[in-house]
């Protein structure tokens, strides 16, 4: 499972990095979103991977005596998801505003030389 998760984080990051290096705002937004997915998965895994264990210690629950999964990364991921969501929303609005005001969707606000043709 560790290998699979590492692979997913790696592929998401690579795609994200490729997309944010593109010249238009839509791939940029997608790339930043993929990067935030990658980092959320990564944060989740920092508490070590465990299956079927509760994130709380309760004496009345039989499973918790055998072990528990670290609750802190889950709280961190939740915070990161909320912040990432708000930032993506803001970025999309800004990209739309730039599209309207600059007349094209290039991140520098000027069309490529080949676009006129």
């Amino acid at each position, binding site marked *: 499972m560790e290998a699979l998760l590492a692979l997913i984080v790696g592929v998401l990051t690579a795609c994200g990095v490729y997309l944010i290096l593109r010249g238009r705002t839509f791939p940029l937004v997608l790339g*930043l979103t993929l990067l935030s997915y990658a980092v959320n998965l990564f*944060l989740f895994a920092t508490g070590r991977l465990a299956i079927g264990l509760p994130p709380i210690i309760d004496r009345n629950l039989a499973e918790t005596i055998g072990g528990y999964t670290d609750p802190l990364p889950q709280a961190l991921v939740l915070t990161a998801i909320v912040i990432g969501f708000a*930032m993506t929303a803001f970025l999309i609005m800004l990209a739309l*505003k730039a599209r309207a005001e600059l007349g094209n969707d290039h*991140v520098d606000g000027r069309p490529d030389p080949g676009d006129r043709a």
Partner: protein
Amino acid sequence: MNPLVIAPVLLPLLAGTLLLLLRGTLSLRVRRGLNLTLVTMQILLAAILLMTVGEADILVHTLGNWPAPYGIVLVADRLAAWMLLVTAILAWFALLFAVRGTDAGSRHFHPLFQLQLFGLNGAFLTGDLFNLFVFFEILLLASYGLLLHGGGARRTRAGLHFVALNLAGSTLFLFAAGTFYGTLGTLNMADLAVKVATTPPENLGLVRAAGLLLFGVFALKAALIPLHLWLPAAYASTSAPVAALFAIMTKVGAYCLLRVGTLIFGEDAGPVANLYTDWLLPLALITLIVGALGALSATELRRQIAYLVVVSVGLLLTAFGLGTSAAIGAGLYYLAHATFAAAALFLLADIIAGGRGTSLDRLTPGPAIPRAGLVGGLFFVAALLVAGLPPLSGFLGKFLVLKAALADPAWPWAMVLVLTSGLLGMIALTRSGSLLFLRADGRSGATPASAGDLAPVVGLLALCLALTIWAGPILGFVQSAADQLLRPQIYIQAVLGSTIQTEHR
């Protein structure tokens, strides 16, 4: 538990909420007065906090009364209190300029202004790495709003770059924080400082990678070369009071580099000791030269000032990179000076641009500015400050940094590059000054700048004068702040002290 530590975070949050709620019921005039009063209260709070930590130990506030490594802590040491005071004073003057009319451009200027202060104060006070990330996001989201305030295609373009770069930076921050938690099992900065010294060899590479990722993130915020390219466009295209307030934004990055570099990767960090110092000094020195060349090549006054901000970051980080107590003390003194002087120049550039009709702040001969003598005199004083010429605080700060640099083996480099960048900056400002004020012909017909417009500029310049006159006591304080930073045991003891005792019991 100490309510004084959390008050500088709570006050702007509540103030921002209040201003948002009252937007519909109170007139703009009343809200302006209210906001100014609230920022004045923050100055007073920061001053009280500074006096308290100046005499006593580090103050710690445990949120929700959870003991240190488990709960989030807010820590007020001398450095944090100094940063809070500089921020609050700067914000007051920026706001004083904004209420002259800039704040009418969009509906949420006043709440955003307070939320920006909320993020800044929180970033200076927090003792938890993840909490630092959260406060970074708060101050960035507020800064995006402020940067775009007033609208216009140029601001939108600069804003898009600024937002995208900072979002990428935030992702790197999260990767670094996650790696720290995965290898060391904690995010409390004092606890990290304890645990990093005993990193097992198999995790050493990971901890080093996480530390350097953090370095990259803070270098992006501080505009250290080669991550400085966002700054000139963003600062040159936004409105004047926002640019003035942003003078502190690069210092947040410098503050974080100093905090993490001395606390977590300080002398006691064992295998990863002094992780940042090898990188910081050379990059800071190159930043000085690149910034100065940028200032020389700028074709607009505001872009030139933005490059001079990059130069000031270079000198600041040179001081922090030297790493001795004297150098850090000199750097903290220079930090206050550079912030106020850059803000004064940004505000002045707006007045100059307003007085030149269609020429705006382009560095070409244009119509004469009304009241050119007064505005030109202020520009001259501000240029003296920024270029670091005697007898004002810029010279004092630069001199102290250079004096501290003599103890370092790299002193010839520091000497040559700092002095060259100073010379280039001086040439750039002389050229702009003579173009703007001496080679002017005809009248622009613009209304002359009123006393109210010039008051914030004069105030900021007077602050720099005060920094020069009371340099003795101020240097005494920043020196004690630097000494406190170089003995991280005090910080660790203050944060974890009670917990360590409990474990021994």
